[in-house]
């Protein structure tokens, strides 16, 4: 809870700093502040571990609006780390319009508060608020280049469809409320256990599910994602594809774990269908993309499909999801840091822009390669372990078919990840090199090192959610 308030405060501080003309201090202060908050979060997490013998203790705040537990805090930590990376890259990316720097930083911070609310809610109202804060921030970020028609279009599409999805989520919440008489997770949970709920309760769950499937961009609710990713300014695409996607997935998982304890057969059928569809659509569509952002959008769709498999057996999967989310998001940050570097001052983000990167900037090329290999699931990078843990848990549930499909999809995915790698190493560069901006370089290297590190010590992350 404290973290949430502190981050919101930090966001406001940013805005005030602009008023007092402390523009230069914004980013350093924000990063230091976020690091401090991360420390706070860690210490709270330690307390949690020390104070209780129970694996997952729900510590409620404000009438149980916010619940502090290991799940929420672990994800909070991940989100903060991601935000630090994103914020660190902001000044470099927006160096054209310095005046708006505080806005961009502040919006990211607010977005972070939304994300944190989404993983630590104890009440559906808080969940709804979180998801809306996150979404509205993203609408703004997507459309943040008002003179660029692509950005406008992206913002418009995202907004229209996002609002539409919000409506469906809201409808679902209303139905759940109608069925159980409360917005409080704990109450709803006990109501489910007592059984005998009206038929519309399940409809409510499904509506909620659909809304969240939209947010994580799972097929067939994915169609906005490629367009929005492509149109948005690249840094904001990075935000969407890493932080926003992971947060939505975590919220989805948390919600379903508490609301949908006994997963019904038809629900499983829906999840499996959507999962298979997402993986397949995402991977196959990505094969023929020229625009890297668009390609990563489809890749993100397929990863959403992978992550959806955690819903097949929620109680056992929280660690797996966290690991997968961390691996995916960190690799994504690393990839986007390189993309930002390469496509700065370019008119598009097509693959040919990456030609010859292996020669002109070996470090960045290596980083992007590792990031892509991680996403493709090549050991010893964390992406491999993410898939491996996921597959092992899913196989335990007996769903062999979906694992086979997932494996087949992994093979397809290699096709397009390698397209980019091939461009970097086998083609010649068209232009002279530009210096790697320090911010991008540091973020890229740090995030890829983290990716490798959690690959070498998966226990470190898996242990967090015990």
């Amino acid at each position, binding site marked *: 809870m404290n973290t949430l308030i502190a981050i919101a405060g930090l966001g406001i501080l940013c805005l005030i700093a602009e008023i007092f003309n402390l523009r230069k201090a914004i980013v350093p202060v924000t990063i230091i502040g976020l690091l401090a908050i991360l420390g706070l979060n860690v210490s709270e997490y330690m307390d949690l571990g020390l104070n209780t013998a129970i694996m997952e203790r729900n510590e409620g705040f404000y009438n149980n609006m916010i619940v502090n537990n290991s799940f929420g805090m672990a994800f909070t930590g991940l989100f903060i780390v991601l935000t630090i990376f994103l914020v660190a890259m902001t000044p470099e990316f927006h160096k054209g319009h310095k005046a708006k720097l505080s806005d961009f930083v502040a919006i990211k911070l607010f977005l972070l508060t939304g994300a944190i609310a989404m993983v630590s809610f104890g009440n559906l109202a808080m969940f709804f608020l979180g998801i809306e804060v996150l979404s509205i921030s993203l609408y703004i970020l997507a459309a943040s280049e008002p003179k660029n028609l692509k950005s406008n279009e992206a913002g418009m599409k995202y907004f229209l469809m996002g609002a539409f999805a919000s409506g469906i989520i809201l409808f679902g919440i209303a139905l759940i409320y109608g069925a159980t008489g409360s917005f409080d997770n704990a109450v709803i949970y006990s109501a489910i256990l007592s059984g005998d709920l009206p038929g519309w309760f399940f409809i409510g769950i499904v509506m909620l599910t659909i809304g969240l499937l939209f947010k994580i961009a799972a097929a067939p609710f994915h169609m906005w994602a490629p367009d929005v990713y492509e149109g948005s300014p690249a840094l904001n695409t990075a935000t969407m594809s890493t932080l926003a996607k992971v947060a939505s997935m975590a919220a989805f998982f948390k919600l379903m774990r508490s609301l949908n304890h006994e997963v019904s057969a038809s629900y499983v059928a829906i999840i499996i269908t959507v999962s298979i569809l997402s993986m397949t659509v995402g991977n196959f569509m990505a094969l023929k993309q020229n625009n890297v952002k668009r390609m990563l959008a489809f890749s993100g769709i397929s990863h959403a499909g992978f992550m959806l498999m955690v819903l097949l057996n929620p109680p056992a999967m929280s660690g797996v999801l966290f690991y997968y989310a961390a691996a995916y998001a960190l690799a994504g940050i690393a990839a986007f840091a390189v993309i930002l570097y390469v496509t700065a001052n370019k008119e598009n983000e097509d693959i040919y822009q990456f030609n010859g990167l292996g020669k002109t900037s070996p470090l960045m090329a290596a980083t992007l390669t590792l990031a892509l290999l991680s996403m493709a699931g090549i050991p010893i990078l964390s992406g491999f372990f993410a898939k491996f843990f996921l597959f092992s848990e899913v196989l335990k549930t007996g769903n062999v078919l979906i694992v086979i499909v997932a*494996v087949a999809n992994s*093979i397809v995915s290699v096709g397009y990840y*390698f397209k980019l790698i091939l461009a970097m*190493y*086998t083609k010649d560069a068209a232009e002279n090199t530009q210096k790697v901006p320090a911010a991008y370089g540091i973020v890229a290297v740090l995030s890829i090192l983290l990716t490798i590190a959690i690959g070498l010590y998966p226990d470190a992350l*898996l242990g967090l959610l015990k």
Partner: protein
Amino acid sequence: MDVSFILIILLFGAVATYFVGDKWASKAALLFSTAAFAATLYVIYRYNIGEKVSYFHTWISKPRILLHFQADSLSLAMTALTTVLTPIIVLTSFGNMFPKTKSFYALILFMAFAMVGTFLSTDGLVYYIFWELSLIPIYFIALIWGSGDAESRKKAVVKFFIYTFAGSLFMLVSFIYLYTKTGSFLNTHLYNAHLTEKEQFWIFLGFFLAYAIKIPIIPFHTWQANVYQKAPAVGTMLLSGIMLKMALYSIVRWQLPIAPQAAAQYKYIFIALCIAGVIYGSILALKQTDLKKLLAYSSLAHVGLIAAGAYTLTIDGFRGAFLQMIAHGFVVVGLFYAAEIISRRYNTGEIADMGGIRIQSPKFASMFMILVMASVALPLTFNFIGEFEVLYSLAQTNIWFGVLGGTTIILGAFYMLRMFQQVMLGDKGAKVFADVTFGEGFVFALIIGVLLFFGVYPSPIADFITPDLQKVLLHINQIN
């Protein structure tokens, strides 16, 4: 000093090679790979006098993944093969100038690291990780330093990568499935997984896909010839000399003991497939116009025979397969080196453009001849020992397997001598062909020395590996 030191030397060597810079990279690579070989020899020595050389460490607690490098004679033999071939392969590259030298040599050492890891790991997942890791360096080596038209090379290399990656994913699924059954990835636990026949079949098949593509066994071989041709010689040597041995080794180490009933039940089918590959590869080799492609198909034939030997589930087949693996590793490196020398001097891989080389370079011709003879398994070369034992085991399994597999000695002689005649003999010696330099001759002499020595006196290796092979076989027979 335990086996992990070999890995550490190679990994450290890879990093160090990268950082010493282009000028010294090749020397550093040679130094570290030789050091790794020395370490291997020392480890084998310690193993022989009964000291502890295995390395155990828990890596991930849940799911339980262990860094277990259990050294037994089989893994040590293959490790020694890897570490002895690596410096040789590094040596073969000395005459060439490569762009981005440091990356090149660092990748070679890294690849050796991954391959040694594959041979040593006894934890299934760690094994799988090393298995996949070895794919990355060879991919880049073939892609960046390969020869020929960039587009077609890219196509070939990407196909190779995706194909082998695809195959190994099925192995991963098999491993995960086994883990859900036994709660462990350790091979000794997996051996006793008590699987039903149906489960065994599917697991066997999952492993088979991975191995069949890597070895390759027909009809999964289509990546091979193109990659061998397009990759730089060093890459081809790494691939054919060591990497495909990973799969052959794994058959004995993983596939057969884990699914022994399936192995026994379907062995005829798999042996037949392997032998079909022998004949198919041999006949195709006859029609090749490119030297490296010809060698690639000949390799296809030879490894098919090795795999067939392993699938016979007899001690002779196992031993023959292992001996032949080692012998084939040496001979194929030598042959590809010879091919590389020719194409380096003539700037072509087309057999039709060659000929009359013997006139100008008798030494080279003699060495090439010996390699050709080793390749066709002339007695007193190491290859004969392995091939004989494999064929013997095949004949014991079914006489027709012996006869059909044995056609390799006819067809092998056919295409190899035909190639030798077209490339080396005749009087088409218009083009200048300098005889071998001292460095080249040294490499050939090393390889030939090994092949002849163990051809006459194979007992050190055969006696070394036999007890552990018997253990594997005993396990398989117990379950059946």
